[in-house]
Structure formats: C-alpha cells, structure tokens
C-alpha cells in the first residue's frame, strides 16, 4: 500500500507517465486507486508530432498495468518521510 499512499500525496501535481508502448503523457495527477490506475487532467502527449493519436483528449485514465515510469516533480518527494515509510513497510508494520 506504500506506493498507493505515496501517489495519493502527489494528487494535484504535474507528472509525466511513460507507458509500455513508449507513449509519454504529461498532465496533472487527478487520482490514483489500489491498482495504481492513474487519472490525469489537462493532458498532452510529450511528442505530439510522432503521436497525434490523443490530440483531442484532455483528461484520461491510464491503466496501472501499462505504466512503465512516472516522472515526478522534484519537490513532490520528501525523502525523509519516504525513508521512514519504506522502513515501516519493510518491518511489516
């Protein structure tokens, strides 16, 4: 549940989601669920000339199973809190 909780903290931040078909979508994180499905708002595809397939899409739902990377804003990560949470998770607490 750590990553679910972690992504919930990032709601409202601008992220780039790279998919397993090489498509990269940038947008504001709207919500996440237990499967790490992601909903983005104000989306745009990073390379629109190469990938014009989503030109008329501004809000989208991305299935968690096709996400390769999520690029986060640097200020979206509080390393100390993440360290603590990771250790707690590892201890099974």
């Amino acid at each position, binding site marked *: 549940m750590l990553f679910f909780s972690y992504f*919930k903290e990032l709601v409202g931040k601008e992220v780039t989601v790279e998919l*397993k*078909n090489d498509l990269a979508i940038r947008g504001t994180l709207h919500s*996440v669920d237990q499967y790490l499905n992601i909903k983005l708002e104000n989306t745009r595809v990073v390379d629109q000339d190469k990938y014009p397939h989503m030109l*008329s*899409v501004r809000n*989208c739902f*991305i299935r968690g199973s096709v996400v390769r990377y999520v690029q986060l804003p640097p200020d979206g990560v509080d390393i100390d809190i993440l360290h603590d949470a990771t250790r707690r998770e590892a201890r099974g607490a």
Partner: protein
Amino acid sequence: MATGPGLESLVDQTISVITNDGRNIVGVLKGFDQATNIILDESHERVYSTKEGVQQLVLGLYIIRGDNISVVGELDEELDSSLDLSKLRAHPLKPVIH
C-alpha cells in the same frame, strides 16, 4: 474508494480507447467494471498510417476486455471536430510490451 480514478464520470460520454495492441477505438462508454472491462456503443476504430489519412472503421457495439486496455481518454468533441483526420498521418502506436 471515493477518490479513485473510476470511469463513472465518463459514462455516456464519447471516449477514445488505446488498446495494448496499439489500436484506437472511439465510442460512447456504456459500462465498465473494476477490471476496466468496458462496453462501447456506436464505436469505430481509427486506423493511423503514414501513407494516407486516418481511416475510420465502423465497429458498433463492442466489449473490450480490461487486460487489453492501455488508456481511456475523454474525447473533447470540440477539439475532435476541429481535427482534419483525413490529413493526419502517423505511424500506428506500438503494442504494449510488458
């Protein structure tokens, strides 16, 4: 889960689905479940190629299994009607490789 990214808000709206094999299917969302299985009405496939503009194939009522879905996008009708699909050329999307 109240804040989850369900598809409730998209029901009866036109959506654009990208499947794991790189296809793009546009239709009206009629239903869905937790596994992202979806029911699309009045659907058509948009076939992208570099040799000619986008071809639209009529599919009708369609059920897509969640396993096969990459992205479900809310289609902005205004933006969509401003696109000239017959002039749009692009490689088809690559399939998802897990």
